[in-house]
């Protein structure tokens, strides 16, 4: 399975965003992987049940990198800023709890931000993986997302695209206020 790679148009000097989707059988058996941040490279694990597609993640990454470049990070580092950007609230702990990896078996989205890695690099690719573009969003927990984003599942979430549009717009307007 090929790695999903996307270069951010605004920040090409920051390398690329690479994503791998691990199925529940490749989960961490109760061991939560730690997030490691190097100078220009970052590895992050997200609960794939809270993601409708890769697009909201890319928006969150782009927003986080922009905040870092502008010196306006609202959390401690880029990894937590990405998780924070994905959530509708300004509660950092809650965002980490919702989007971070849990101990029960579930699909995980592994995200690498930095210089693109070769196919031979990294141990995660040794196991069979799911397709980010086709499979991410299949296991989405609609009820949990609707509750978290305060959406009405009968009205706002007719299909996954509608739900995603609401989520993205809510993410975009979070913490935005006129000066």
């Amino acid at each position: 399975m090929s790695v999903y790679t996307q270069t951010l148009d605004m920040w090409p000097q920051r390398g690329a965003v690479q994503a791998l989707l691990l199925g529940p059988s490749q989960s961490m058996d109760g061991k939560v992987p730690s997030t490691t941040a190097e100078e220009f490279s970052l590895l992050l694990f997200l609960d794939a049940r809270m993601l409708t597609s890769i697009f909201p993640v890319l928006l969150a990454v782009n927003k986080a990198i922009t905040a870092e470049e502008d010196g306006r990070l609202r959390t401690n580092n880029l990894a937590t800023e990405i998780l924070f950007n994905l959530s509708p609230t300004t509660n950092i702990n809650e965002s980490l709890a919702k989007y971070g990896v849990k101990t029960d078996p579930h699909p995980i989205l592994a995200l690498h931000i930095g210089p693109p890695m070769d196919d031979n690099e990294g141990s995660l690719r040794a196991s069979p993986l799911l397709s980010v573009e086709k499979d991410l969003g299949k296991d989405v927990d609609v009820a949990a997302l609707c509750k978290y984003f305060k959406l009405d599942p009968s009205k706002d979430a007719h299909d996954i695209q509608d739900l995603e549009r609401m989520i993205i717009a809510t993410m975009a307007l979070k913490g935005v206020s006129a000066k």
Partner: protein
Amino acid sequence: MFCGRPAIAKQRFNKTYRHPDLDKKLTSRRLVQEGRLLLKCLKANVPVPTIWWVDMARLTLYMERIDGPSLRDYLFASTVGWLSGQSHTQERSSSLSPMSLDDGLAQKVGESLAKMHDANIIHGDLTTSNILCQGESSSPVRVLLPLVIIDFGLGYISTLPEDKAVDLYVLERAFFSTHPGTEDLFQGILQAYRKVTPASAKAVLHRLEDVRLRGRKRSMVG
């Protein structure tokens, strides 16, 4: 392209003729207001582009790109297409006569505006250029396309029938000045508007009569 998808970046520039403090305040307020109205429209099921990111540092809104002609171009093309007989060569099954096209179009515009006003959103600059017909540019002109309302830069929230009536009046003026002979189409829009929200539409359309008599601006005398 933005994060791999076609996007529109709407940047607000500094107006040098305004005092810098006032300019900063107005620009950021309008930017935020536009973003909030787009989200409110989305929640009210009004067809608008999805807002992706509000970059306050660069005064830029990033949103979904809607491909397709504006309603202005669409109406013009459909009129010209029909008159020149080009549409006879297109697929008869998928095409509509001008009458049924107008009915469908009026229905869609009226419904969208009614939903928008029902959510107390005032567009502020309703013209046929600010309504897009989403679809391939190569689509036959007589096929009805989904409509999307854009540019909420002058929009605001109001519960007053007066503001909603002025919104409709601005659209009416735009229709009559840009597309002569569309009186029936606009009447169809008002009928569809009335059908979606009968209770509130009554007050708005009653007020529209007054606005037509005096114009968009209210008299401040007395």
